């Protein structure tokens, strides 16, 4: 790759913001922890046979019957919270990123196609998107999660349905701007097939605003999934995501056993804040009006 490739130029500018760099490091660290959870975690929180009830609700620092220290304490079933959080992050990140990618692909294709086609199809698609944007995302996701039932794929489907509209809106605006540019006219007058012009020329040039939306929406998807799980319509109990860990500890919050809810909450906040910080920096760099 030569030094002038767009990505390398982007990275050179990104490196200058220390906070965003730290946030990116945190995201990478969390992603690594999540991926390597089975190797790092002292306990497999899904293996109900290994849970010991006498270890339940122990405060941070307690040395349990397994002979290792529960650094973040244990929950009501005697699960090591550090292990549970690692496995919870794994599910939260997986679902958030998967939902973000699927919503990106569906939304961007819809919005860009609408802008490119114009006329009646554009009006139909975009009015539908507007209609959906006027409903709160949480309401839609809640209804869908309740209707579709519990499970990872159902959860991803509910999140995608609640979020693709943001990508469609953004892609539509960007593609409508690109559509009017000479290079699109040049490609059409070659002539190249409409499909080629849309996917090889227009969409790649719509990427900057879409990437910004994507970072925000991945963070939103993770928060939304945690909310749904907290409310009990999310993932099944056998797959404890961060939201469910928070919900499980909620009833003990006022009885002094704060750690069961607080630590999963802190992990969730760190993850979402880090993603948003990186997203802010990406947005600043890609916004031509803020160019130095």
């Amino acid at each position, binding site marked *: 790759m030569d030094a*002038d490739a767009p990505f390398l130029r982007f990275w050179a500018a990104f490196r200058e913001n220390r906070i965003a760099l730290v946030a990116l490091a945190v995201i990478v660290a969390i992603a690594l922890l999540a991926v390597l959870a089975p190797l790092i975690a002292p306990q497999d929180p899904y293996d109900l046979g290994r849970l010991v009830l006498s270890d339940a609700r122990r405060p941070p620092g307690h040395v349990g019957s397994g002979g290792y220290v529960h650094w973040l304490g244990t929950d009501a079933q005697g699960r090591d919270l550090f292990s549970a959080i690692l496995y919870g992050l794994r599910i939260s990140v997986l679902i958030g990123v998967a939902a973000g990618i699927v919503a990106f692909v569906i939304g961007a294709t819809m919005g860009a196609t609408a802008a490119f086609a114009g006329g009646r199809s554009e009006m139909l698609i975009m009015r539908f998107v507007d209609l959906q944007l006027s409903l709160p995302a949480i309401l839609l996701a809640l209804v869908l999660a309740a209707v579709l039932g519990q499970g990872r794929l159902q959860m991803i489907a509910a999140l995608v349905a609640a979020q693709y509209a943001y990508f469609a809106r953004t892609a539509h605006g960007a593609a409508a701007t690109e559509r009017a540019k000479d290079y699109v*006219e040049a*490609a059409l007058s*070659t002539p190249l097939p409409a499909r080629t012009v849309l996917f090889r*020329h227009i969409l790649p040039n719509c990427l900057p605003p879409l990437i910004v939306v994507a970072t925000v929406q991945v963070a939103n998807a993770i928060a939304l999934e945690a909310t749904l799980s907290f409310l009990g319509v999310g993932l099944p109990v056998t797959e404890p995501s961060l939201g469910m860990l928070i919900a499980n500890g909620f009833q003990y919050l006022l009885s002094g056993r704060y750690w069961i809810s607080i630590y999963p909450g802190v992990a969730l906040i760190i993850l979402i804040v880090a993603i948003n910080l990186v997203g802010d920096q990406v947005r600043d760099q890609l916004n031509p009006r803020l160019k130095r």
Partner: protein
Amino acid sequence: MTGAAGPPFIAVTSVSKHFDPQLSLGERIAGALGGAVETRAVRAVQDVSLQLARGEVLGLVGESGCGKSTLGRMIAGILPPTTGSVTIDGAPVMSGGRHPRKRTTRVQMIFQDPYASLDPRMRIGDALAEGPVAHRLSARADAAAYVAAWLRKVGLDPDAAQRYPHQFSGGQRQRIAIARALAMRPDVLVCDEPVASLDVSIQAQVLNLFLELRRALSLTMVFISHHLGVVRHVSDRVAIMYLGGIVEIGPAASIYDDPQHPYTRALLASVPQLALQGDVVATFTPIAGELPSPLAPPPGCPFHQRCPLAEPRCRDQVPEMRPVGPQHAAACHVLQPG
């Protein structure tokens, strides 16, 4: 080269282009309720007919807004005409039907702004190979060599293929745009103000490149410009456009040395000259008045409101194109006795 016998290579037959206003739902409701909503179509080009012989270069001149770019885009197959047809060698440039599409690669276009007409995210090599590979003018495996050959022909280093558009100057980019158009092996090139956005020092180089390539590849060209000097330099024949129509057409020498239509005369007189007459900079005469709105073209001769020679009949009779010399025609009542 002018006026070769036989059927015309390019035939533009009474084409018009009207742009309907794009009304939003709200505007349509307001219009239905009697609000002041503009519903008239812009008549960008009105009933234009033209013929070009193979190998000929036609200059298309006029003020901004006269419809010369729209006419060029219809010849290049980018805009479908509202009525009329454009054919090259007897074959229509665009398909018919409700969604007309360009069907031929024989006509290619060069745009005014070389900064906007190249995809900023695509390497030059990919941008140049795309069309020829899609239309099987070059195999994908040979595309790099094919692109390199065309880059050399427009005077660029083949290494340019690895780089992005922002790494080039305006003149270099216009060379790249020319290479991209020519790599499609067209017979016809429509150039819309191809040097207008370039530095004066670069303009001559790019113009000479056009002339060289035209000779080497025996191209037929439509060269659109508002710059009279540039057009004279490259054209065999020149057509003067005013408010969507052609008012005078003829060999470049006759148009420049013996203009007939009052508009052409006014246009030539309005060019600022830097030549000194004694110690005084030669004055020039700007054309009186503004270009009328193409939403509501005046009745009769479109130029009568600004014409110094206007007669009563100019106000209500549309003048027709009539010969005023060898291969030279103009649309003006005053030139015709009666």
